[in-house]
Structures are given as structure tokens and as C-alpha cells.
């Protein structure tokens, strides 16, 4: 009762006109930051469908008046490996995601529920690798990949991707919240340890597994530096490396922005759609503490 009264008191104490102006400026600020935030994305898709001759003029067209898919035709003529890049990216991300779905749940389960000597120490070691910049491991990993003949091989991208803290942390946090009674009951009914994991833990972890799959996929879909170093022939590129290689594509002596943007927009599209569908999982995943951006 008392609080309602205070609330009313405060609202009444404010002059209504000023309050409305405050709201107005708030919305102006919010909408303009939204425009600034989304403009590069908008510009990406607009330029992708604008013929190159219309991209190099002042003032630039803010709307795709002369939209055509001409750029995409030229993109596929120039970058013959484009679909191969997409396939490579898909192979890499699916393999890494598959690995993490199983092994992060296993170790997340062990770190959350099992008791064994050294458990906390092992978890601390895994967490502490967060502080190690990936650049430190580049040189030795490159030497090993070279000695094993894995340069230009997708395995060289997939294998190091299996060491990633985020999933273990996420699954541990989630499995800690699951009731222990269910596991106990299964054990009393004669279920083996792998059975408990497979029949109880895995099905109960479905919501977290969804977030884990999405996050892992997106992280590795966008990863750049390591694939750039270890993949050298155009056929073996992943999408980001392939798109980056289009950076200086020229047409009649000037940079062909139409083709570059067609390539970039096509690479961005799946993630944009993915995000719009699974938006909730993404934002939930950020809250657990993951993506840099």
C-alpha cells in the first residue's frame, strides 16, 4: 500500500509535459542508435543487389532502385569455389558442434555431479585456458599440422576447435540445476552409469543443448585467423576466408563492389535467418557469458 502511494506521489510530482518530452527524446535516441547499428547490415544487402555501375556514384542510392541479381551471376563466374566454401564451412561447423554436444555434456555432467579426486583442479585448469589468447597456440599448432601433412585439410580446422571452454561451462551450469533424485532412481533400477547419462542426463539437457549447438556453430562459422593460416588453396577455404579473398576483386580497373558484396551478403544470410529464428537462445547464451561482440 505504502509503495503504491509513493509511486503515485512521484509521478504526480513530475510536471507531465517534461515527462513526455523525456519519452520523446528517449525514443529518438533509441531509434537513431538502432539505425546506426543496423545500417551496415542494410547497406550490405542493398549493395549486393545493386549493379556495380550504380554503386560508384554520388549521392549513393539509399534504396535498391535498380535491383538485380546480376552481381550474383558474376560472383559465381568469378568465385567458382563459392559453394565449396559454404560446404567446407558447413562440414567444419557441424563436426565441431557434434563433438561438443556429446563431450561437453559428458564432462559438464562429471564436473557438476560426480565426485572424484582432482575434479576442481581439472575444472580450474580448463577455465584458466580462457585467459590464454589463441595466438599463443598458433605457432606450435601450425608446426604440428604441417608435420602431419594437414595443411589445406579441413581436419586441421576441426581438431583444434574441439578444445573450447564455453560448452563445458554452459553444460556444467545447467546440469547442476537438474534434480539428483532422478539419477538415483535410475541407478536403483539397475541402470548403468553410461545409461544414466544417455537416458536421464542427455534428454533433460535438451534446452541447454540447443543453446550450445547454436553458439558453437556460430562461433566456428565466423572464425577466421586459424583457417586463414592453415587453408591455402581456394578449394579448401571456409566461407570467411573465401569472402575475405574476394576483397580486391576488380572489374575494368576498379574494385568490383557488386561482386564483393554479393559474396558477403550470401555468406551473412544464413546467420541472419538463424538469428531471427533462434533469437531467444542467442540472447540466453550471451547471458551465460560467451560471444564476443
Amino acid at each position, binding site marked *: 500500500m505504502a509503495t503504491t502511494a509513493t509511486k503515485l506521489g512521484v509521478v504526480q510530482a513530475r510536471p507531465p509535459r517534461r515527462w513526455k518530452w523525456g519519452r520523446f527524446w528517449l525514443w529518438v535516441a*533509441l531509434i537513431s542508435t538502432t539505425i546506426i547499428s543496423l545500417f551496415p547490415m542494410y*547497406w550490405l544487402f542493398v549493395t549486393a543487389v545493386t549493379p556495380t555501375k550504380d554503386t560508384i556514384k554520388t549521392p549513393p542510392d539509399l534504396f535498391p532502385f535498380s535491383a538485380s541479381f546480376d552481381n550474383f551471376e558474376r560472383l559465381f563466374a568469378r568465385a567458382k569455389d563459392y559453394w565449396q566454401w559454404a560446404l567446407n564451412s558447413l562440414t567444419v561447423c557441424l563436426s565441431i558442434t557434434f563433438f561438443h554436444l556429446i563431450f561437453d555434456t559428458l564432462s559438464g555432467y562429471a564436473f557438476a555431479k560426480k565426485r572424484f579426486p582432482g575434479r576442481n583442479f581439472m575444472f580450474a585448469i580448463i577455465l584458466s585456458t580462457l585467459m590464454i589468447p589463441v595466438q599463443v597456440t598458433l605457432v606450435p599448432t601450425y608446426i604440428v599440422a604441417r608435420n602431419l601433412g594437414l595443411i589445406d585439410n579441413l581436419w586441421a580446422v576441426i581438431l583444434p576447435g574441439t578444445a573450447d571452454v564455453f560448452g563445458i561451462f554452459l553444460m556444467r551450469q545447467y546440469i547442476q540445476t537438474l534434480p539428483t533424485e532422478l539419477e538415483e532412481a535410475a541407478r536403483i533400477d539397475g541402470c548403468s552409469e553410461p545409461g544414466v547419462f544417455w537416458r536421464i542426463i542427455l534428454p533433460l539437457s535438451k534446452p541447454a543443448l540447443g543453446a550450445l549447438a547454436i553458439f558453437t556453430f556460430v562461433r566456428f562459422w*565466423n572464425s577466421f585467423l586459424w583457417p586463414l593460416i592453415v587453408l591455402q588453396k581456394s578449394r579448401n577455404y571456409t566461407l570467411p576466408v573465401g569472402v575475405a579473398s574476394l576483397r580486391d576483386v576488380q572489374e575494368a580497373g576498379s574494385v568490383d563492389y557488386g561482386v564483393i558484396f554479393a559474396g558477403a551478403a550470401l555468406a551473412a544470410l544464413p546467420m*541472419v535467418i538463424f538469428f531471427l529464428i533462434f533469437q531467444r537462445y542467442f540472447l540466453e547464451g550471451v547471458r551465460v557469458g560467451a560471444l564476443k561482440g
Partner: protein
Amino acid sequence: MANVALEKQKAGSLNPIERVIGFIKKYGWGYAFVIPSLSTFSVFILAPVVWSFIISFQDYRLRGDPTWVGLDNYVAAFNSQNGKFTVFGLELEGGVFLQALFNTLYYTLLTVTANIFIGLLLAAMIQPLGKYAQTFFRAAYYLPAVTSSIIIALVWRWMFNSQWGFLNFLLKLVGLGPVYWLSDPDIALNSVTLSTILTVPATAVVLFSAAMGSVPKDYYEAAELEGAGPLRKWWSITLPLIKSTTLYLVVLYTISSFEIFDRVFILVPTGVGNSTQFIVTQIYQSGFQQGRLGVAAAEAFILFAIIASVAVVQFRFLRTDVEY
């Protein structure tokens, strides 16, 4: 109680082999479940870190045997042989790597400050909105972050284009320019920084607004009773209570700024003199373009040392004991 005593007694009477079997029976599955993850971490992170440290004291090239050179790689990074570097227009003796260090620090300081400030501001602005409006703005700010940084950088490169770019078009409208955003050595570093600052810090907005949402409402009501205005409430209640989120974000953004590479690789591929060299672009060049792997390893360890010490200092300064 009796059971424990009995077990202890039993354990004491067992022979070593039976004891090992008992240990495995009791803890084996725990170890079995962590082994896959633990082995990938050992093979792909822990072992490489140790080996990288060793390489950083060697002259390691792709051909020929590595030779021990002591601290030479570290000295070479700071050596003055390769000329001069500039700090705020001041010419100093020093190598490219010193220039890269300075550029990275400059970039980090500006972008981290801007990201935290903008993140706080936007999160505070969407706080009073309804649930759906909040979700909409969070999603709108987050969308560019799911796109590869390479793609975003390509768009910025086009916007920075001195002839046809969008920024010079805007400047022309108010009678200024043209500015050579990416080719003028005095400006290029600032352009790279600007492109980061103008990208909304999505993670910060999402985390700050979650943290602000979890501050108990009665704190504000109590403050209102005491006659505190909105600014006062924000300063004295909101800010202290979201301190741990702020700390996390400062560390997160500091680390990712120190590791800047993708953006630079696209915006200024060949560099504008040394004015757009960063630590990781240096590592990439010395290691994978010039084949001096030892130097690259040493530079990576300098980066590691900086990141670790910055993180420790930030934890000291911003640590919070507030629980709510």
C-alpha cells in the same frame, strides 16, 4: 557413521590391487566422462602453450633445425634497428612492434571505454520500456554481432571509401571532406577505431540490461522515499549493483580489443605504413608471412603477458563484494 568406520576398516585390510579396483569402481566413471574434453585441452591448448614458450627462445623457421637464441626474439621485438615509431606525432626510436603495441593500446583504451559507456547508456535507455520493445531493441543491437567480422569490415571498407563511400557523402552534405579514411597514415588508426566504436556493443547491452533488471525494485522505492532523483538513483543504486557485470565486460572487451585482427586484415590489408600495425597483425606477418616462427611465438607471449596482467589489475580495481 558406523558404515564409514566399517568401510575404512575394510579399506585398510585390502591389498593394493583391490584398493585400485575399489578406487576405479568409485571414481572411474567421473574420470571417464572428463577424459575426452581434458585430452583435447591438453593436446590443443596446454601442450602448445608450453611448446610455444620454448619456441619463443629459438630461431625457428620452417626449413632447417631450430637454434637456441636466448632472449633475442623478445629483444628483436623491441629493437630500434627497424627504425622509428610515432606516438601522438612524436617520433621515437623503436621497432614496428613497439608501434603495434602503442596502436593496440590506443585502440583498446578508446574502444573499451566507448563500448562500456554506450552499453550502459543503451541498457539504461531500454530499461523503462515494455517487454516486447526491450526484446526488439536487444535483437536489433545484437544482429550485426552474429555476422562474421570479416563481412562487417567489408561494409566499413566501402563506407570509408574516399571517393564513393557513405561517410564522405555525409561530410559533403555539410560541405566538408573528402577525408582519406583508410589511406592517410594520420587518420587510418582512428578510422579502424571509429568503425569499432560505431558498432553497438551488443554483449554489453544484453548483459547490462539483464543485470539492471535484477536489481530489486524496493531499493529504488526506498531511495524515492528519501527523495532521490533518477540520476541519483542510477549513480548510487544501479551502478554499484551492476559492478560485477561491468568488470566482466571490461575484461571481455579488453581481451577482444587486444586480439584485433579480422577488421584490420580487411580494412587496411597492406597497412598504411606502420600506422595500422597491431599486435596480432604483427604475429601473423612475422610468423606466417615471413616464416620467423620464433619471433611470432615471442610476440604472442608478450600479448599473453599483457592480457594476463591487464586482467589481474582490472579484477583488483573493479572487484566487488556486493551480493544481492
